[in-house]
């Protein structure tokens, strides 16, 4: 037991020896091990999602002064299972004129796109992903989700689905630019694309170096998941859903499972990039402890995401796009430039001075940005308070309408 806590790879070695003793060839043993590892890595998040759905419903209910699910099981803990059962036995309606192969592929891809983020994530010292192009891998896996949305919208043979898919893709694509830009900063600070190296480099968490970048990353990630306040396009509580309007039963559930899992995954990713990943007291000696730390940090960020969801109203689509292109992208460009130049200057200063220098630069950038935004806001026309405002678009009333006979 102690050996396992110190070095989890003994488990793998033990399994390998066991399989070899059963007479399996070396190649087949590796394949079985990969399959087992893959199963563990895929089952874990998928089961976790069921808990997340319960947690989120409960948390949002508390924010809104409700109880949330409380009938099935203790605290309603079994509610998600009941939901899954119900969705399983729903009729699977395929709309007329749907492009069948693509219609089936879309929900599968949308979950796969999120699951595929997981093998790159370093879960602890020597556990989990250790890819030398890890950051790029994450960005690449994300494109799968965009494609799923495009396919869902197109294959449903529905005007609303197609339009929503287009708008959603435009949104995702717009928010990917600041994300890719901001991710340059951890890479630059750690001098590596390897996520394990990025975690190892965080003797001081990168959120101390570049808090602004961390904030941008969080905002952009929420937009990439398409949650409130960025979920205008599928506002499921008010308008007809978005690109998945024609989906029912389990296919529909898969889109939502993907969304919930993605929300938690961005928590984990934020932790990896900016909150020191699996690092914490004792995690170097007991790597299993690292998984726990990572999970806690990720869950904390996830809670913040839920909190934002429960608090903020939706943003209009033109504001949403403007926010990305005209605010986040220039800000991220500035941050990368400043960070790059500064890091060359302070490279020999030791850990804390370097971190504080970066922090100071971030504070300066933040203050300047605030001033600029304030100056911009001052120039905006303000609606006059107290005057009657038109309910809908005002018609030009140049001359009174001639009275008709009746």
């Amino acid at each position, binding site marked *: 037991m102690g050996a396992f806590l110190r070095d989890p790879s003994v488990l793998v070695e033990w399994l390998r020896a066991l399989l070899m003793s059963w007479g399996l060839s070396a190649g087949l043993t590796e*394949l079985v091990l*990969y*399959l087992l*590892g*893959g199963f563990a890595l*895929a089952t874990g998040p*998928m089961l976790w999602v069921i808990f997340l759905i319960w947690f989120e419903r409960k948390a949002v209910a508390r924010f809104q002064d409700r109880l949330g699910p409380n009938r099935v099981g203790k605290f309603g803990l079994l509610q998600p299972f009941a939901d899954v059962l119900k*969705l*399983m*036995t729903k*009729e*699977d*309606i*395929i*709309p*007329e004129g749907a492009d069948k192969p693509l219609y*089936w592929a879309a929900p*599968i891809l949308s*979950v*796969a796109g999120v*699951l*595929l983020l*997981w*093998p790159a994530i370093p879960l602890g010292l020597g556990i989990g992903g*250790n*890819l030398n192009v890890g950051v790029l891998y994450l960005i690449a896996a994300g494109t799968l989700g965009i494609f799923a949305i495009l396919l869902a919208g197109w294959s449903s043979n*529905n*005007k609303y689905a*197609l*339009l929503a898919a*287009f708008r959603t893709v*435009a949104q995702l*694509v*717009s928010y990917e*630019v600041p994300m890719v830009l901001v991710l*340059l900063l951890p*890479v630059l600070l750690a*001098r590596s*694309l390897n996520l394990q190296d990025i975690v190892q480099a965080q003797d001081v968490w990168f959120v101390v170096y570049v808090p602004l970048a961390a904030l941008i990353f969080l905002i952009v990630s929420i937009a990439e998941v398409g949650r409130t306040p960025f979920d205008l396009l599928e506002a499921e509580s008010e308008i*007809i859903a978005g690109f998945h*309007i*024609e989906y029912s*039963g*389990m*296919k529909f*559930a*898969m889109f939502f*499972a*993907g969304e919930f899992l993605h929300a938690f995954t961005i928590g984990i990713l934020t932790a990896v990039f900016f909150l020191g990943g699996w690092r914490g007291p004792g995690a170097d000696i007991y790597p299993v402890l690292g998984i726990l730390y990572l999970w806690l940090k990720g869950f904390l960020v996830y809670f913040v995401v839920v909190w934002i969801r429960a608090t903020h109203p939706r943003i209009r*689509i*033109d504001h949403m*796009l*403007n926010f990305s*292109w005209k605010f986040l*992208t220039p800000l991220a*460009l500035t941050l990368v*430039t400043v960070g*790059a*130049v500064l890091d*060359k200057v302070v490279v020999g200063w030791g850990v804390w001075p370097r971190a504080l220098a970066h922090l100071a630069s971030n504070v300066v950038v933040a203050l300047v940005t605030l001033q600029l935004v304030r100056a911009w806001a001052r120039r905006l026309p303000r609606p006059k308070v107290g005057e009657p405002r038109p309910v809908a678009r005002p018609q030009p009333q140049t001359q009174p309408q001639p009275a008709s006979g009746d």
Partner: protein
Amino acid sequence: MNGTQWAFIGVFFVLALLFPALPIVLGHFMGPRRPNPIKNDVYECGLKTYGTPWVPFKVQFYLFALVFLIFDVELVFLYPWAVAYGVLPMFAVFEGILFILMLAAALVYAWKREALDWYEPTMPEATD
């Protein structure tokens, strides 16, 4: 070391497709199947659909994707620069900055041409 990582990802890719596919197929066979023309009809606010699901899309969609494409390509090439940062001399840093400035120029151009604005269809259309 990297080879095994990628082999694992390859195996995981198959699993990641199978995991969501299984419940969907299961649900497809577990549920009842009584299709009728009205149920299978495409949703259209309670009305019967007419015509094709064709909507005249705006050029804005294309423009957003376009600016994104340019940014994406350039940013991917910026990553090796960031990785090699520790061993780069000062002028190499400025070459990278020049690259970023090029991006900024692209952004400014797109901004000034109003390619990043979202026009509503009800807006008075500009003349072609």
